[in-house]
Structure formats: C-alpha cells, structure tokens
C-alpha cells in the first residue's frame, strides 16, 4: 500500500520534524486532502502514523489512542474544508508499529479496526463501508533492535512481522538487523525482505483472515486495549481535540513518562531484552556497517546550484509570490505549490514562503 509520509500531528507528538506551528500545518493538510480528493481520487492522501509514537516510547494503547485521535483530527479537517466524509475518508490510511509482545500487537491491530469503524459510523455518520475501514501499513519496531548480538534482531523482526500479518496489515516493512548501528547494508536489507517472503510464501499464515478471532485470550486483550485507547481519545476530546492536546503537551508527556518507565523496568529486569539485560556475553560488534560517502552532500548541493542557474528565475519568483498570496488567504495552496515545483522552485524556497507567513514552531523542551 503506497502512502505519503505527511501526517504532521505525529511530528509534534513524537517524531519532532516540524517547521510551522500546529494550526497552519493542519491547514496545509486540509488543503492537501481537499485537492487530492478532487484531483487524485485514488491516491492514499495521508498515512496517519502510530509508528513514530511507539518508537518515541509510548505503550501499545497510547500508540492506538493517539494515532486514532490524530485520524479524528484529519477527518474533522476534511469536513471543515466542506467535503462530505464519504468523499475522502476511504482514502485515509494508517501506519502502525509492530513491537515485541506478540498477542498485544495482534490485539492492538484488531482494536484499531473496531474503534475506527465505530468512529466513522457513529461519530462522523459515514455511510460508505470503505470509510469505515482501517487500512494500515506496519513496520517492525526499530527501537526493539539491539546492538548486542545483532543477529538476534532477525528473530525479533520475524516475530513482529508475523504479528502484523496475523493482525491483518495491508503492507509491511521489516527492519534490517544492523539498523541499530547504521543505515542498513544491502545484505541486511535482503534478509529483511526474505523474512517477509518466507512469511508470505512458506508459512501459510497469509492465507487466512483474523486467525485469532474467537480466542478467549486475544478477544479479551483486544477489549482491554480498545478500552484503554478509547480512554485516551476521550481525554483528548475533553481537551477540545488533538491540536489543543498537543499544544498542552499531553500526548508528548504521556509518551515521555512511558519511555522513562520502560527504561526503569529494564534496569530492574522487570522487562527483559535478550543480550542487553539477560544472556549478556562479552563481544565486539563485528558485522558489516554501511558508511555513506560524504561526497553525497557535495553532489546534492552542486545539483541544486546547477538547477538554480538553469531554470527561469523570473518564473520561479512569480510562482513563489503567488504561493505567498494564497498562503495569506484561505485559498487552497496546493495548485500554487505545484506551480512552484513545475518551475523548479526548491523545497527550501517553498518552505521559506510558508515560514514567512506562518512563523516557526520551536521545541517546548518538555522532559
């Protein structure tokens, strides 16, 4: 399932790659959904991401609650643009993490589908069954990989990938065993890919849907995670929605607390990571590491310089000026961004236009 990485709410909550404050950023997302619904109707407009929330230290229930609360925020943004919910909701999609606790992850994916279907039917009165679907991509948990005894990471990734598949994921990313040390080598990436192919072609698990349905344990766990996630969504609703919650630092603090608690549990061996706090061996990390040639930076700078010389700079300036005018009003900025791109305006130049109009957001430095 192809997805753009354009969920801005999870940036404030977890990944922290932002430029502008939350409200103007949400306006850009609203413009994008409105534009894409009309112009590229079969495109998955946004990948609403729990992955980064989990990597930053959240629990499974927090990942689910905060991600679905972000999804609610985007549905509201689309409706506020004057769109009918069934016109754009079928193209929303999600992106979850798959962590180490196998059944907890399976239950999380199952709970995600339940909650989203009810949110879309009951809260937003969507009539098209495709609007009720929680389609999602999954990536195995990068944060679970260890520098110690790194070949064990293949096993971790396999278990996490299996949980995602039996949990019903639409697509899958398996991490490479060396990613806790560097960008992956070709060999490590190939093993990660083969892990998926073995699950898909040999294990037989992909031939059935929701194989744990009816298991007392998994159904009960699904109920528990669903209730915990709904509790987070309720708290965020009570704060007036996800933007207000983010501005208050609520999800950020919850995640920070969970990350610290997890580390303390590791120190007390209440949680175990094989090779880190149990079954530790004396070792020197001796696996191939990818190094990136520093020339890559020079080459890219030179490319940008060359394009800036060869393009029609009058046209670029005019396109950027039109974009700025649109940004200052409520006009949809998407056609103007595309004009800038067609004239070879750089990403930096386009972002600078919005910087001027919207200002910049700075890390609130919450611990």
């Amino acid at each position, binding site marked *: 399932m192809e997805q753009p990485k354009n969920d801005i709410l999870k940036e404030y909550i*977890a990944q*922290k790659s932002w430029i502008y404050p939350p409200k103007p950023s949400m306006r850009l997302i609203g413009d994008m959904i409105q534009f894409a619904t009309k112009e590229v109707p079969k495109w998955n407009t946004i990948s609403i991401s729990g992955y980064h929330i989990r990597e930053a*230290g959240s629990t499974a229930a927090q990942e689910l609650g905060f991600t679905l609360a972000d999804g609610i925020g985007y549905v509201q943004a689309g409706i506020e643009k004057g769109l009918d919910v069934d016109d754009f909701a079928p193209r929303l999609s999600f992106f979850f993490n798959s962590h180490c606790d196998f059944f907890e992850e399976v239950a999380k994916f199952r709970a995600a589908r339940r909650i989203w279907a009810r949110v879309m039917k009951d809260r937003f009165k969507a009539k098209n069954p495709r609007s009720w679907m929680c389609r999602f991509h999954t990536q195995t948990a990068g944060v679970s990989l260890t520098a*110690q005894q790194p070949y064990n990471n293949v096993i971790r990734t396999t278990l996490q990938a299996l949980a995602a598949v039996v949990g019903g994921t639409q697509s899958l990313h398996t991490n490479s065993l060396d990613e806790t040390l*560097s960008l992956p080598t070709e060999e490590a990436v190939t093993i990660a890919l083969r892990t998926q192919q073995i699950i898909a072609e040999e294990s037989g698990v992909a031939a059935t849907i929701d194989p744990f349905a009816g298991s007392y344990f998994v159904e009960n766990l699904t109920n528990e995670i669903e209730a915990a996630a709904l509790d987070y969504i309720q708290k965020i609703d009570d704060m007036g929605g996800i933007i207000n919650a983010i501005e208050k630092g609520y999800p950020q603090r919850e995640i920070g607390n969970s990350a610290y608690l997890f580390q303390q549990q590791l120190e007390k061996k209440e949680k175990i990571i094989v090779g880190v706090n149990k079954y530790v061996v004396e070792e020197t990390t001796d696996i191939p590491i990818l190094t990136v040639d520093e020339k890559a930076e020079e080459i890219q700078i030179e490319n940008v310089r060359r394009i800036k010389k060869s393009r029609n700079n009058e046209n670029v300036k005019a396109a950027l000026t039109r974009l700025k005018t649109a940004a200052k009003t409520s006009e949809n900025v998407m056609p103007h961004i595309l004009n800038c791109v067609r004239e070879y305006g750089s990403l930096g130049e386009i972002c600078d236009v919005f910087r001027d109009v919207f200002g910049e957001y*700075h*890390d609130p430095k919450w*611990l």
Partner: protein
Amino acid sequence: MSNTLRILVAKPGLDGHDRGAKVVARALRDAGFEVIYTGLHQTPEMIVNAAVDEDVDAVSLSVLSGAHMFLFPEVIRLLKAKGASDITVFGGGIIPDDDIPKLEQSGVAKIFTPGASLTDITTWVRDCVKPTK
C-alpha cells in the same frame, strides 16, 4: 555555592530523536544533578552558548543522526574558543565502535552506546565529572 553538578543535556542537529536525551536527562535529575535540557534542533554554537551562560560542569550530547564525528569535535572546539574547556563533554547515541577512540582523542570524555544502563551513566557522571572553577 551548591556542590551539585550542573549538566546541560543537548540535542544537536535537525533530527527529532529525543527519547534517549529525555530519558537520560530525567535519570540525571532523579540521581540528584541539576539538569538543563536544550530541546531539539540546536547548533553547536547554541549549545556552547547555553553551556557558558548556564555555568554548567558538563555537556551531554545525544546524537543519533550519524553526524557525531562533526558535532562532538565542533562543540569541543567552540568551548575551547570560549575559554570553557574545563567543561566535561560526554554523550551517546548510534555511534559505531570504530569512531569512539577518535572521539575520545578529540576530547570527548565518554561515549555511551545503545544498551548502556542509566546506572552506568549516573555513576560515571558522579565519579568522573569534575566541577568547573
């Protein structure tokens, strides 16, 4: 004057990987040190200015972006230029074993790599960070 060590936990670079920096900052605070956290997206200049202004005894850098071979030596060079080379510089992140001796040669007092325990870090700070004058 209090004898409590003051530590600046700093996050240089453009990436947002602040989980480690925040966990370490909280652990240092809970261990009784005075901790100042810079927040994200700091340049080496911003970090060194904060270290001098806040009169800290140590700067702890968290680097997961791969840019450690630039960022650590640059902070040390700028501290020297400000006459503040008595501030201890340590840190951690995704740092390959081969790079650690080179960083230590450039003046980094200690590098902690993935899997380091909070107790290791707080004990090292207590034992090895000397108060500045």
